[in-house]
């Protein structure tokens, strides 16, 4: 068998013309985060530890829409959410509406492990973070100049927007399309078939204050059971409606599809074109990365030496 890990930094209408200065830092980040995950798996860390670790790295990186680098609400603030799930026990934790917690995914894990609840949000979640001694910083620390510019553009275009459209160029909205993405996530499986999934995000640019997306909703953006672990990204509203993460597993279980077939089916049939992507691993050590958008920032590796870091479709 062997371990396997896959991670993503968002699916959407990533223009093929993405200039090197915007592409390279992200590729480097994906490479780095993948290495962090691989090292942890080699060191026999549990998949649950691994996915939390990798997502923390992605949150700390300002090039992705999670933690630092989160996109902004319509009021120019940051509201972060995250979710983690352990496949073996199906225990899960989720948080929304965070404004000062440095690593939302870690708070989600604490909710899972230290409360009888699954999901805490807004003021209650922030208060809990302080009680638990998690690292918090002033909210301004998450805000990057790029995202301030993105918000400005989105307001001008009067729409919610992707996180990686270049803020400096004044191209017309139609060039970038209307895809809405951003989110980071990681799934992992160890040699014993233990699975875990984690997802984290700042949400949609120019979102209404209080808007919750698919990421913290078990079965939509995040899911893991004893068959597979899934983390999705894309247009939150479509992923919720399509119960994307859960359906990958349901197709494997109820229709006998393979991991790859199930993932392909979900992105083709359960959500509209241009709205979603996902990474998934199975208890047997298989992995798949599927998306119906122009591209998806992603990286993956398996114990037998396979490695991939990519943005657009491989073939």
């Amino acid at each position, binding site marked *: 068998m062997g371990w396997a890990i896959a991670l993503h930094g968002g699916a959407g209408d990533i223009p093929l013309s993405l200039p090197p200065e915007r592409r390279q830092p992200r590729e480097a980040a994906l490479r780095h985060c993948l290495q962090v995950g691989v090292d942890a798996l080699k060191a026999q860390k549990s998949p649950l530890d691994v996915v939390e670790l990798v997502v923390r790295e992605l949150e700390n990186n300002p090039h992705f829409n999670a933690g630092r680098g989160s996109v902004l609400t319509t009021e120019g603030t940051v509201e972060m959410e995250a979710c983690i799930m352990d496949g073996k026990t*199906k*225990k*899960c934790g*989720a948080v*929304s*509406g965070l404004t000062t917690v440095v690593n939302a995914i870690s708070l989600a894990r604490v909710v899972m492990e230290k*409360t*009888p*609840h*699954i*999901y*805490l*949000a*807004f*003021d*209650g*979640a922030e*208060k*809990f973070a302080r009680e638990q001694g998690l690292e918090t910083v002033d909210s301004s620390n998450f805000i990057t100049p790029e995202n301030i510019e993105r918000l400005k553009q989105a307001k001008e275009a009067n729409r*919610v927007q992707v996180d990686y459209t270049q803020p400096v160029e004044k191209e017309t909205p139609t060039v970038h399309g209307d895809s809405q993405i951003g989110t980071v996530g990681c799934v992992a499986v160890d040699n014993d078939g233990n699975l875990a999934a984690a997802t984290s995000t700042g949400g949609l640019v120019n*979102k*209404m*204050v*209080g*808007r*919750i*997306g698919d990421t913290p*909703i*078990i*079965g*939509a953006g995040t*899911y893991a059971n004893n068959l597979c672990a899934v983390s999705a990204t894309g247009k*939150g*509203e479509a992923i*919720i*409606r*399509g*119960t994307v993460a*859960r*359906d990958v597993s*349901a*197709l494997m279980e*109820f*229709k006998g599809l393979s991991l790859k077939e199930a993932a392909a089916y979900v992105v083709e049939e359960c959500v509209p074109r241009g709205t979603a992507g996902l990474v998934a691993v199975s208890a047997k050590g298989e992995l798949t990365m599927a998306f119906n958008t122009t591209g998806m920032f992603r990286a993956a590796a398996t114990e037998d030496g396979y490695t991939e870091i990519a943005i657009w479709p491989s073939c």
Partner: protein
Amino acid sequence: MERNMGGWAIAVHGGAGVDPNLPQQRQEEAKQLLTRCLNLGIDALRSNLSAVDVVELVVRELETDPVFNSGRGSALTAKGTVEMESSIMDGLGRRCGAVSGLTTVKNPVSLARLVMERSPHSYLAFAGAEDFARQQGVEVVDNEYFITEENVGMLKLAKEANTIMFDYRIPEAGGLETCSAVVESPILMNGLPISVYAPETVGCVVVDSQGRCAAATSTGGLMNKMSGRIGDSPLIGAGTYACNLCGVSCTGEGEAIIRGTLAREVAAVMEYKELGLQEAVNFVIRERLDEGKAGLIAVSNKGEVAWGFNTTGMFRGCATEDGFMEVGIWD
């Protein structure tokens, strides 16, 4: 669109997990409310209202009446306030709307519907949801409106129960009877004594005469919950789900419902395993709950209605176009 050969059908619930020592008067009160709600829904269906209109209408009634744990009569947070949540889903197009952390909105299910229809999003919570409510001009009231004397008493018991797990008698106040759970082996839900923590979330599922399904769920959540805690009711796929095949609303242990993605599960086995409605409901209750305790109601696009629960009782009622009608609590 295929003509629905089966006619319309409707089901309502007021929570799975009932204290077996619930006083007779309370049981009657509950059954009367369920009956009234069913009749409201039936009238609406006969007037050709769509499924999503009917579920909203019925859940509004359940929210307004203080008997169950939603809207007025909601369970209280640890701070003694009310934080309500709800979700609604229209099987046609699988459109959905959800809200959490409401403190002044009189009918959470209606705000959930507005999120679905008047916002670019699917889920709004806390201050943002309250702002949206005001923008939309929905009826808002003081938080006190939702708080009942009975629940203030229950919160006190809940706080006591956190440290001592015995003596669940409701304090004598304005004619409330004592209601004691069996001390030796109390029935627990969410790990807590049911006489104090009975979920009593409300919900409604409907299939109309065009074969369209819809579902809605509403709740005040867990008594003595941490402020900011979100349960299964506003989570699409967990507490609520509807698609072209069916409409489902769940109630019980929030954690178990979320982990089991219960509402979606019923639809998924119908869709992917081609089970019929009752088979699907039975399968999910039997196989997807592990040690969790929950119940659900469901309708199919063929005009069928079904329910299932692995708890001690579920407040429920259902009716179909051919004249069948039933309200019940126990097995």
